[in-house]
Every structure is written in structure tokens, then in C-alpha cells.
């Protein structure tokens, strides 16, 4: 089969860019913690890359993207890459691209699974044993990520219903964000949050910016690659992605200036990431004006969600729920408002503000609500079971005081 070499070139590049996002998250998160926790974030990124790759190659890809069974899950045809060798024809399934080898599609999707799982580690940071985190994330990949990816992208019920999620508002950001919300309700607070402790400042903001900048670049592959080819949709995706991120960064800076009197750099890079999150589901469907709107509103929503989290008091260490959960939710809904067939013929009913009525919006809300509910319930139950059957899932107070890096990895980040 003769593939399009331009598509292959772009999709390998995209895959490399998305792969980079997982260690980038390690820097983005690690820099925000105190210095005795830096390595835990980097180390967990590496563990995620390994564990998810193995799951994905062995059965995950097959269950997510194999032929659909009842709208809920894929089949096992592609176990261990069976039938999707590099020279095999692409399977005759709607969602497989025909311009690139299926094996490349597999790897591209693998990098999405990695980054999604990696997003979680920032929220539940600094209290679980490494083994418990690893087991939790592995089960999570199988129980949450794979089904939801199937529903939305692999021919499942949301796919069939026609809700739009270009690059992962529901699959990636809502799943990760809601997981942290549910999980932290079960596992409780870190010691340092229990009594009226002074907030620990970010230990290395340049690393946060480095991670954030690499995430931004990686998002070219994340959103641009989701077009699965080097085409107009990919171009639109990278353009609106850049606009949303750039605008959201300065808007967050402005909010922090108005609210606190200073223009926080940590805030600006967070804002840019929130802009990236929110544009993700929309990036194949909205135009440059839509991107401006999303870039302006998204940081307001996540900023507000952080204030809410502080009031509610659950210990989402790095605000994964506020930034990814709420950012992704906003983006998914905004898609229902702003989608336009002018940038993508695949948009059959226009967004509400583009004259398409509430049809698409309802579908978007349905998808969002279903994924929220599914993730929240499964994670909550899973965590409850886990803390019950595995009493030693938590590090001790003494270990928390000493810091996770030394306790779990036997290393200091700096010396």
C-alpha cells in the first residue's frame, strides 16, 4: 500500500512531539513542588512511559481501537500488534487512517495514553507509596483510559452519537482531572496541608516554564497530529492551538495582576497550558475567532476553579482538576458553541453560536456528563478498595517529612 510520505513525515514528528510531553509534565509538575519531591515527578513520568507502553502494545490498543463491541469496548484482534504489522493493510475500520501505516497510528495513540496517565501524578503527589501509585495507574489505564478512548475515538457510543472531541477534551483532560478529584477525596491530604502550614513555594519555576514550553511545542503534535495527516485540518489545529495558548497566558497574567497586584510567571505558564487544554477538543472544529474566545475564557474558569478547590479543601496538589478537568470540560462545551464546518467538513451540525442550534451542544454535554460520572465513580470505588485491601499504600508521616525523593528513590535531585 502506498502511503502519503508527507502524512508519514508529519505523523512521526507528531508522535515524537507528544512523547516529549510526558517528561515535560515531569518538569512542569516537579518544578512546582518542593525540591525533595522533584525526582518523584520525573521518576513517575518514566514509569508511566514504561507501564503504559507495555499495556498498550499487549492489549490496550486492541481494546481501544479494535472493532467495536456494543459501543463499550474494542475487541482483541490486535493483541500484541497482531495484524497491524508495518506492511499490513490498514484494518477496514472507520477510524483507522489510510494515509499512514496502522502501526504509526498505534504509536501515536500510545503517546496519548502516556501523557493522560502522567497528568494524574501531579494531583496525587507526595503521599502514596510508589508501588501503590504504579498499580493504581496501571489499573486506571485499563479500566478508564481504554474504554473512554474507545467510546470517543474507537467507534464506541460517543463516537456513534456524534459528539466531537478532536484531540482529547474528554478522553485526556476530563478523565485525568476528574480522577484526581475523586482520588484525593479518598486518599486525603498531605501532612503539610493538614495543619495551618505555610504554603511551600515552587522550588524551580524555570523548570516549570521549561516543562510548560515543551508541552506547548508538544501540543503541535497533540492537536496537529490528531488530523492524522499533513492537511488543512492539521494546519487549522496548530493555528488555533497557538492562538488559544498565547492569549490564555497573558489573560492569566492579567488576572493575577488584578487579583494580587503582580503578574505571576507561574500563572502565565499555567494559563498557557490551560489555553492548550481548552482548545484541545475544539482545535479541529473552531476558527481563529473561536480560538481567541476560548483563550480568553479558559483561564478565568480554571483560576476560579482553583479558588473553589481551596475553599473545598481537597488536596489536589497541582490543581489537575482545576486546570485539566475544568479546562477540558469548558473546551468540550465550547466546541458545541463554536464548531464550524468552515474549518472542517466533518462538522455536520454547527455550534450554537454559528447557527447550528443546540444539537451539537447537547451531544457535547452528554459526552462530558457521561465521562465525568463514569470516571468519578470508578476511581472513587477503585481507590476505596485499594486503600482497604492495601493498608500500607501510604507513606508514613516520618517519610513525608523526609521527602518522597529520598524515601522512594534513595536520591536527592540536587547536591
Amino acid at each position, binding site marked *: 500500500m502506498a502511503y502519503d510520505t508527507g502524512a508519514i513525515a508529519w505523523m512521526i514528528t507528531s508522535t515524537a512531539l507528544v512523547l516529549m510531553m510526558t517528561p515535560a509534565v515531569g518538569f512542569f509538575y516537579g518544578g512546582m513542588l518542593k525540591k525533595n519531591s522533584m525526582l518523584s515527578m520525573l521518576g513517575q513520568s518514566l514509569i508511566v512511559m514504561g507501564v503504559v507502553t507495555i499495556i498498550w502494545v499487549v492489549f490496550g490498543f486492541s481494546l481501544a481501537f479494535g472493532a467495536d463491541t456494543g459501543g463499550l469496548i474494542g475487541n482483541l484482534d490486535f493483541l500484541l500488534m497482531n495484524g497491524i504489522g508495518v506492511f499490513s493493510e490498514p484494518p477496514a475500520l472507520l477510524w483507522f487512517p489510510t494515509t499512514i501505516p496502522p502501526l504509526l497510528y498505534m504509536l501515536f495513540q500510545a503517546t496519548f495514553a502516556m501523557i493522560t496517565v502522567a497528568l494524574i501524578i501531579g494531583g496525587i503527589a507526595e503521599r502514596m507509596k510508589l508501588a501503590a501509585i504504579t498499580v493504581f495507574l496501571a489499573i486506571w489505564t485499563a479500566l478508564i483510559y481504554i474504554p473512554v478512548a474507545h467510546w470517543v475515538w474507537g467507534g464506541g457510543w460517543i463516537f456513534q452519537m456524534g459528539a466531537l472531541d478532536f484531540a482529547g477534551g474528554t478522553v485526556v483532560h476530563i478523565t485525568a482531572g476528574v480522577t484526581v478529584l475523586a482520588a484525593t477525596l479518598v486518599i486525603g491530604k498531605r501532612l503539610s496541608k493538614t495543619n495551618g502550614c*505555610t*504554603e511551600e*513555594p*515552587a522550588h524551580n519555576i524555570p523548570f516549570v516554564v521549561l516543562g510548560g514550553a515543551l508541552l506547548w511545542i508538544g501540543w503541535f503534535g497533540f492537536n496537529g497530529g490528531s488530523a492524522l495527516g499533513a492537511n488543512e485540518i492539521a494546519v487549522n489545529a496548530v493555528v488555533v492551538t497557538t492562538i488559544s495558548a498565547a492569549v490564555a497566558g497573558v489573560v*492569566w497574567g492579567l488576572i*493575577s495582576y488584578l*487579583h*494580587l497586584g*503582580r503578574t*505571576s510567571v*507561574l*500563572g502565565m505558564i*499555567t494559563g498557557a497550558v490551560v489555553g492548550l487544554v481548552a482548545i484541545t477538543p475544539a482545535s479541529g472544529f473552531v476558527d481563529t475567532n473561536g480560538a481567541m474566545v476560548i483563550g480568553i475564557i479558559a483561564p478565568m474558569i480554571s*483560576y476560579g476553579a*482553583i*479558588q473553589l478547590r*481551596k475553599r473545598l479543601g481537597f488536596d489536589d496538589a497541582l*490543581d489537575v482538576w482545576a486546570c485539566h478537568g475544568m479546562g477540558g470540560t469548558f473546551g468540550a462545551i465550547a466546541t458545541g458553541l463554536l464548531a464550524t464546518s468552515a474549518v472542517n467538513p466533518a462538522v455536520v451540525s454547527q455550534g450554537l453560536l454559528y447557527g447550528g442550534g443546540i444539537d451539537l451542544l447537547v451531544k457535547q454535554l452528554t459526552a462530558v456528563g457521561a465521562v465525568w460520572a463514569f470516571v468519578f465513580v470508578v476511581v472513587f470505588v477503585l481507590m476505596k478498595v485499594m486503600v482497604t485491601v492495601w493498608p500500607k499504600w501510604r507513606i508514613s508521616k516520618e517519610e513525608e517529612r523526609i521527602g518522597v525523593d529520598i524515601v522512594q528513590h534513595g536520591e536527592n535531585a540536587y547536591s
Partner: protein
Amino acid sequence: MKKIEAVIRHEKLNQVKAALESVDISGMTVQEVRGRGEQKGLEFINRAGKYRVDLLPKMLVTIVVPDNKVAAIVDALIHGARTGEIGDGKIFVSEVERCIRIRTGEEGDEAL
């Protein structure tokens, strides 16, 4: 001989060094410390809120000198380090019994 320890503002170090040179003192040891006195800290911000750092960065300058130089040095330190605002720091003076220069083994005031 006496040990003079001065906790000063970071950004005043160069002026303090200059002031000390003007009274002919060049030997000194300097460290970065954090401290709290009447100045109760500074407010910092993070990505969506404020937090207070109650221990602020300061420099600790230690100078060991013969007894007769103490007065001049204290004056020089005050001169170099004062801004008049809270947080200028403090000077502590205490007794040192012996001083030895490692290179030569010399002792006493000539080792300073």
C-alpha cells in the same frame, strides 16, 4: 579578639564591603542565611494566590578582629548597611579566644 557578626540585607553587601575596606578590613566570611526580626516576612504570590515567607534572605558577615578595631568596624557596618527601614539587620559581638592561620600556624592578632 572579637567576633563581629552582622546580619545584613543581601543587596547591601557591596556597600558593606566598601565600608569595611575604608577602615582597612579585608578578612571576612560571608554566608547566605534567612532570618526574621521585626520585619515579619514578605508576601509572595503563586499561580492563584498569595503566601507569606516569614524567613527572608539575609547575608551574615563574620569578621574576627583585634579588640581595638571593634568600634570602627561597627560604625562602618552600620554606615554600609543602613537604609532606615525595617529589615536592616543586627550586629552581634562576642569574644574569641584564639585564632590560628592554617597556612603558617601563626596565632593571635597577627593571624587575623
